[in-house]
C-alpha cells in the first residue's frame, strides 16, 4: 500500500515540555489510522505540525512520497490535507455556506458568488448524505451538525487526507455511530483518515491501525485486529489500567440537595427548565443522563447560584439557597467541577497556585485581612498537584500550559479539597484520557463512600452507567424518569433521552 503521509524524526519543544520527541508516523492510502494517547502525549501537536499550525524543531515530512515543507495551513490545504479541530474552527455568526467557502470563495467579478457557494455546499452535503441547510447560522445548529460542517469544509478544499481531532468528544451515542459510517464511506472514496482519540471503544470499532503515543514518544504501531482494549490501554498509560469502576453498594443517608419545582430561562430567554424536582442524598451518586442542550447546563447553574430560577427552590441540607450568590452556596458546602473548564473552572492566565485557592482565596490560611499568604497558597497548590498526580513542571506555570486532563484533575483536586457535602461534577471527564478518567472516577466513588452527595452530569452514557447509583433522565427541561442504575440499560436510557416513555409492566 502506498504511503500518503510519512513523518520522520519529528521533534517539537514547547517551553518546559518536549511535546514530540523523535516521532515517526505513517499513513497509508485508504486506511483509518488512530493516534492514541493520553492528554498531553503530543498527538494534537504532531497533527498541528502536519497541518502547518506549528513548525517542527527537527524532522521531515513526506506527502505522497515528496518531501514537503508545510509552513502554514494554506500549504497543508494545497497538499490535500484537511483537519477537523477538537474545538471547532467555525465562525459562529456566519452561515454554513459562508464557513465552508471562507478562504477559497467562489467569485463572480469581485463579488462572492453566494449562489454558487450555497449550491456547492448543498451538493457536497448531499453527496455524503449530510442533512445540512447551507443557509443555517452556525450558532443555531447542533454540535453534531457543526462537526459535519467541519468535515465538509475539508472536503470542499479537496482534502484526501483528513485529520479528525477527538471527533467524538462532543457527540451523542447515535451521532458517534453515524460518524463511523461517514468515515467508512470516505475511505471507500479513497480518502485516508487520521483519527486522534483516547476512547478505546472507538479505536476498536473504527480503525485499521493504531499508533500509540506516550509522553511525546511513539510506543508502537499495531493493526487493530491484532490487539484488544486492555493491551491498548496499557500501552497508552504505561501500566495496567482498570477500566471497570469498582464500587460497593451505596449507603444513602440524609438528603443533601433538594431541588423543588425549578424553572429557569436559558441565555436566549427561552424556557430551559420546566419544573425540575430532584433529590441527592449523602453517600450516593445521582447521574443526570440526557442529550446536550436539554437543560443540564441551566440546572447546574441554578444549583450553583450562577443563574436565577424563575420558579422553585433549591435546598442544601434543608437550608434554602435559592438565588443566593455562588459564594454563599460554596459556603453552604457545594463543590463544583464545571462543564467548561476553560470558562468556569480555571483562570487560564493565572498560575496554578492562584487557581488552587479560587473560591477559598479569602479564607485563612490563604488570606489574612487584605493580605494573601503566598507561601501557604503555594504549599497548598503543591499538595493538590501531588495528591491528584497533576503533570506539571511546577505550581508556577499558567493553567493554560497544562493538558486538558491535567487541568481537569487540578480542578477536581481543588473542589474535593474544599471538603464539600455536595459535589457537582459536570462532564468531569470530557475530552480527557483514560488514565485521568480512571483516576477521577475512582476519586468520585471514594468521595461518595465518605458520605458526600454527588450529582454527576454527563453526556457519556457509559460514564453515567458506570458511576451512578440512580439515574435521572432529563429531556426538554424536565426530569422524565429516575431509574435504578443496577437495572437500567443503555437501550432504556436511549429511549428516555430521546423523549420516549418506558412501558411499565404492571
Amino acid at each position, binding site marked *: 500500500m502506498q504511503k500518503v503521509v510519512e513523518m520522520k524524526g519529528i521533534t517539537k519543544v514547547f517551553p518546559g515540555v518536549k511535546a514530540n520527541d523523535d516521532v515517526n508516523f505513517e499513513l497509508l492510502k485508504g486506511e483509518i489510522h488512530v493516534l492514541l494517547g493520553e492528554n498531553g502525549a503530543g498527538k494534537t501537536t504532531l497533527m498541528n505540525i502536519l497541518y502547518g499550525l506549528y513548525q517542527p524543531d527537527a524532522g521531515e515530512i513526506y506527502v505522497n512520497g515528496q518531501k514537503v515543507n508545510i509552513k502554514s495551513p494554506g500549504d497543508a490545504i494545497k497538499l490535500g490535507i484537511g483537519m477537523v479541530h477538537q474545538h471547532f474552527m467555525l*465562525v459562529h455568526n456566519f452561515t454554513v455556506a459562508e464557513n465552508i467557502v*471562507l478562504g477559497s470563495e467562489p467569485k463572480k467579478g*469581485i463579488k462572492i458568488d453566494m449562489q454558487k457557494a450555497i449550491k456547492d455546499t448543498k451538493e457536497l452535503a448531499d453527496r455524503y448524505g449530510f442533512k445540512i441547510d447551507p443557509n443555517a447560522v452556525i450558532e443555531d445548529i447542533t454540535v453534531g451538525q457543526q462537526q459535519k460542517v467541519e468535515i465538509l469544509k475539508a472536503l470542499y478544499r479537496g482534502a484526501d487526507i483528513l485529520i479528525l481531532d477527538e471527533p467524538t468528544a462532543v457527540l451523542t451515542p447515535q451521532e458517534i455511530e453515524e460518524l463511523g459510517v461517514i468515515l467508512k464511506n470516505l475511505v471507500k472514496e479513497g480518502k485516508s483518515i487520521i483519527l486522534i482519540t483516547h476512547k478505546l471503544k472507538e479505536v476498536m470499532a473504527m480503525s485499521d491501525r493504531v499508533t500509540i503515543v506516550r509522553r511525546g514518544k511513539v510506543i508502537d504501531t499495531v493493526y487493530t485486529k491484532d490487539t484488544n482494549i486492555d493491551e491498548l490501554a496499557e500501552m497508552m498509560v504505561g501500566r495496567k489500567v482498570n477500566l471497570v469502576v469498582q464500587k460497593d453498594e451505596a449507603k444513602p443517608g440524609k438528603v443533601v440537595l433538594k431541588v423543588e419545582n425549578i424553572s429557569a430561562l436559558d441565555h436566549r430567554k427561552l424556557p430551559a427548565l420546566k419544573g425540575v424536582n430532584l433529590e441527592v442524598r449523602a453517600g450516593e451518586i445521582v447521574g443526570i443522563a440526557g442529550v446536550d442542550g436539554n437543560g443540564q447546563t441551566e440546572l447546574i447553574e441554578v444549583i450553583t447560584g450562577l443563574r436565577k430560577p424563575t420558579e422553585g427552590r433549591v435546598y442544601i441540607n434543608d437550608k434554602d439557597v435559592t438565588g443566593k450568590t455562588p459564594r454563599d452556596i460554596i459556603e453552604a458546602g457545594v463543590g463544583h467541577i464545571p462543564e467548561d473548564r476553560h470558562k468556569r473552572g480555571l483562570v487560564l492566565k493565572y498560575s496554578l497556585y492562584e487557581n488552587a485557592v479560587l473560591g477559598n482565596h479569602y479564607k485563612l490560611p490563604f488570606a489574612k485581612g487584605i493580605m494573601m499568604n503566598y507561601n501557604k497558597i503555594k504549599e497548598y497548590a503543591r499538595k493538590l498537584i501531588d495528591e491528584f498526580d497533576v503533570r506539571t513542571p511546577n505550581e508556577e506555570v499558567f493553567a*493554560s500550559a497544562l493538558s486538558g486532563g491535567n487541568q481537569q484533575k487540578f480542578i477536581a483536586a481543588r473542589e474535593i479539597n474544599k471538603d464539600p457535602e455536595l459535589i457537582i461534577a459536570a462532564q468531569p471527564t470530557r475530552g480527557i484520557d483514560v488514565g485521568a478518567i480512571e483516576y477521577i472516577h475512582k476519586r468520585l466513588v471514594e468521595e461518595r463512600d465518605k458520605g458526600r452527595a454527588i450529582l454527576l452530569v454527563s453526556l457519556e452514557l457509559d460514564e453515567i452507567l458506570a458511576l451512578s447509583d440512580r439515574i435521572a433522565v432529563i429531556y426538554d427541561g424536565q426530569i422524565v424518569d429516575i431509574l435504578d442504575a443496577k437495572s437500567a440499560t443503555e437501550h432504556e436510557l436511549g429511549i428516555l433521552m430521546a423523549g420516549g416513555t418506558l412501558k411499565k409492566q404492571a
Partner: protein
Amino acid sequence: MANGSIPVVVALLAATFRLATPLIFAALGGVISERSGVVNIGLEGIMIVGAFFAVYGSSLTGNPWVGLLFAVVSGALVAAIHAVLSIHLKADQTVSGVAINLFAGALTSFLIFKLFGRQGQTDGVAALPYPTETMAKIPVIGPFLAELNWFVFMAIILVFVVHYVLYYTPLGLRIRAVGEHPKAADTLGINVYKIRYLCVIMSGVFAGLGGATLSIGVMNLFREGMVSGRGFIALAAMIFGNWKPFGATAASFLFAFAQAFEILAQKFGWALPTEAYLAFPYILTMLALAGFVGKTTPPAADGVPYNKGER
C-alpha cells in the same frame, strides 16, 4: 456658503450633512478596523494628523486635492504605528490608541510652529471648493446639494463601498472572520496579520479623510483643538450602529443633527447659557450609548491580539 435665501429646513439639513461627514469617515474607519478585531480609539488622533497634513499639502502646492492626498497618507502612517503596536507587538490596543491621541495633538502643535512659524493655527490655504454651480442645475434638490461640499458626496459613496466590500466580497468575508474567530481563519490559510494590518491602515485612511473634511472642507486652515472629540463621537456612532457601515452612518447623522440643531437653536433666544447648546450633541452621545443602544454585539475577537501557534 451662508445664503439668506434658502429655507431653514434646507439649511438645517445641509448643515447636518456637512457635520455628519467627518463622523461618517471616522466611524467607517472604526468599523473596518474593529471588524478585523483591532480596537482603534486612536481615530481622534488620526483625524487631527489628517486635518493638519491636508492643510500642509494644500499650502505646499496650492492644490487642495494634494492636501487630501497628504491627509490620507499621513492617516495611514499613523494608523500603521497603531497596527505595528497592536498586531505585531501585541500591545494593549486601548493604551496604544490613547498614546496616538496624545501624540497627534503634540505633533501638530509642534508642526504648526515649525512649518508655519505661528502658534495655535496655520495660515489659510486653498480649501476644497464646493461643487455649487454644477449641483445647482439639478432640479428640485439642486439648492440643497449646492450647500454641500465634495467630502459629503465622497463620504456617502464610501458608505456603500465599505458595506459592499464587507458583505459581498471575499475580502469582506475574511475580514469579518478574522474579527470573529481569527484561529478559524488561520486554519483556512487566511493570513490574519495581513488582514488586520490592511484594515487598521485603511481605518487611518478614513480617519485622515475625516480630519481633512474639517480643515480643508469646512474651513481653510488647521487650528489646535478643531477635531474636538469627533473621533470619539465617531466611535460612539460605530458602537451605536452596531459595527455596521449603514448603522454607523445613521448614528453619525443623528449626532450631526444634534450639532446642527445646536447652531440653529442658539438663534431661538431661549434662556439657556450657550454652553448648554454646545453640550447638546455630547449629551446625546452619552444618552445614546447609555440608554438607547440596547444590545449591540462587537466582533467576538475585537481587541484581542492574535497569537499564532499558541497552545
